[in-house]
């Protein structure tokens, strides 16, 4: 749980201010501002097409924003590509996992950030050793280091995608429906991981559909509808029905339907 008194005195870890993105004539994200504090899990909710994924993709550099500003640790950040986002220790676990299915776990974990030898060649043994270390922490049963990830189970693939984000010292983590494709046990594993990352002071944006999961995992939740921010609430202060009302009707708790 977020201790507001201590945490709020610091500047937000990350702030998205007045973000805008349009595709053709459709305003996918329409002047949205949200922020994230260290050790906080901030849920981002909404229907399909509400704009929550687009908002997050502007932070992760996958989309270039049309307008708005991004602040990291109080300073304006110039994020126009995934590479830029990585420089600010912003890591993303995409809903699709964004794994190259034909490569093994280590190649995926280090994709775009390969470890090389002095001669500039790929240092595969070192990358495998590092992969083994991080996987021993995240998924101790994982042993299929030489199989293309296409041959792994859903949970194993998910742990590779998570390992990629965690290995590189993420300060800000974006998780896009991390449990959508997982079984009960694996979902539990992800929930535990989120708790651990929180304790380390990592800020997490969690995109999810599942109100129940949001209530359990998040400290605050922002709801989007038709590209606009309906509102940001502390999940402890609202009921699941309030959240549903925000998602479906676009009304803030205590307000009349918009």
């Amino acid at each position: 749980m977020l201790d507001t008194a201590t945490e709020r005195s610091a500047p937000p870890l990350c702030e998205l201010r007045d973000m805008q993105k349009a595709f053709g004539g459709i305003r996918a994200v329409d002047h949205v501002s949200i922020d994230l504090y260290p050790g906080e899990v901030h849920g981002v909710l909404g229907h399909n097409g509400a704009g929550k994924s687009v908002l997050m993709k502007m932070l992760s550099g996958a989309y270039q924003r049309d307008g708005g500003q991004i602040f990291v640790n109080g300073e304006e950040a110039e994020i126009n590509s995934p590479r830029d986002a990585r420089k600010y220790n912003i890591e993303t676990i995409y809903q699709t996992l964004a794994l190259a299915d034909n490569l093994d776990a280590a190649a995926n974990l280090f994709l775009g950030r390969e470890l090389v030898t002095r001669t500039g060649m790929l240092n595969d043994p070192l990358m495998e050793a590092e992969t083994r270390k991080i996987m021993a922490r995240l998924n101790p049963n994982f042993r299929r280091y030489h199989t293309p990830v296409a041959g792994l189970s859903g949970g194993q693939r998910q742990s590779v995608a998570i390992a990629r984000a965690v290995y590189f010292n993420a300060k800000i983590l974006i998780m896009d429906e991390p449990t959508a494709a997982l079984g009960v046990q694996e979902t539990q594993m992800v929930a535990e991981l989120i708790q651990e990352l929180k304790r380390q002071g990592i800020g997490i944006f969690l995109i999810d559909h599942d109100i129940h999961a949001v209530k359990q995992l998040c400290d605050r939740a922002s709801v989007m509808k038709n590209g606009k921010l309906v509102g940001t609430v502390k999940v402890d202060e609202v009921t699941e029905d309030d959240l549903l009302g925000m998602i479906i009707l676009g009304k803030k708790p205590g307000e009349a339907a918009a």
Partner: protein
Amino acid sequence: MTDTPPTTDVSEPTRLKRSVFQTLELDTRLLGMIGAFLIIALAFNILTDGRFLTPRNIFNLTIQTVSVAIMATGMVFIIVTRHIDLSVGAVLAVTSATMAMVQTAVLPDWLGIPLGSPLIAPIAIASGIVVGLAIGALHGWLVGYLTIPAFIVTLGGYLVWRNVGWYLTKGQTIGPLDENFQIFGGINGTLGETWSWVVGVIAVAFVLWAMVQARRSRIAHGFPAKPLWAEFVIGGIAAVSILGFVAILNAYDIPTIKLKRLFEARGEVMPEGYTAGYGLPISVFVLILIAVIMTVIAKRTRLGRYIFATGGNPEAAELAGINTRFLTVKVFMIMGVLAAISAVVASSRQTFHSNDIGTLDELRVIAAAVIGGTALSGGLGTIHGAILGALIMQSLQSGMAMVGVDAPFQNIVVGLVLVIAVLIDTIYRKRTGG
């Protein structure tokens, strides 16, 4: 996707049940291809009463394979990144025309470098490679940055480049080419017995050194390593294959008349009973070098990793910060350079440039890559597979010609083999889940 829970894993616990092939960590797919190649070779050998597997025919087979094989290694990268290049035969023709014109017209007539000067061949080859590189860059830019499908860009290139070559040469056959240039043609440039052995021994030493390095590095990181006997078996097979190949090429004797002329040219008299083998053709040596370089790029460099990652999942590659557009340009540039090198080999093999050089090569090259296990869906393919694919195609063609199969049937068989090879590969991949 497997249904096995993560606790039952296939690596350590079931090691005892591993087959010999698994212990040797050999690629069963590669073994299948080598097996198919051996069956083809043996079958033709029986049908031709032993004429197929003679040093002379093996020598010819290798030099006939080189041009297509060089381009097939580049086609692997193209197809792995989910593109296609229909223009390689035409690019070969235009680079060949460029090199022919540079060495017979531009250098001697315009720049005053006399015919036969040792500068001619290197300058001509460099000009061809620059043209190949530029054409590749153009294709890559059109595909990567302007997002025109590679099929269309290179179909256009197929029509454009051969005819640019035609225009450059005014449709004439240009020859004979420079003598130093011609050493890349095969029979006119071989290393001789001694140097062939030297190259063979260096190659064996290199392979064994690489194996020792790989094993050391595995052990240093505490990974399970292959049992020692398996290392020795593989090392032994590699050494015997390399040296055996050299021995076969050395066993192909230079005809006595030709030797006599060589001695006469040096003002000497050939001793009675003197023989000398051709040894490793320089063109084959070039192919081996290219194969090594391309394999290193594919397996050990960031460029290679990004090529395969982009082929496996272009979106993921972009999200990982890979510049997939520029990557496309690089891949097509490599293909352009390789087409130019193939042009050196192809034109010097026939000792002149002709307008029809490399005709239908694009299809042979694509077929070689695909028979060699490159998946058109992207992300999968190996350099050695493509070379083996080229060798299989050439063996079929030469073998059938030797047996006396009618020309139309030759192409029918090659066509069927292409389709059946891909069918077998599809079934194999479904079975193994790879």
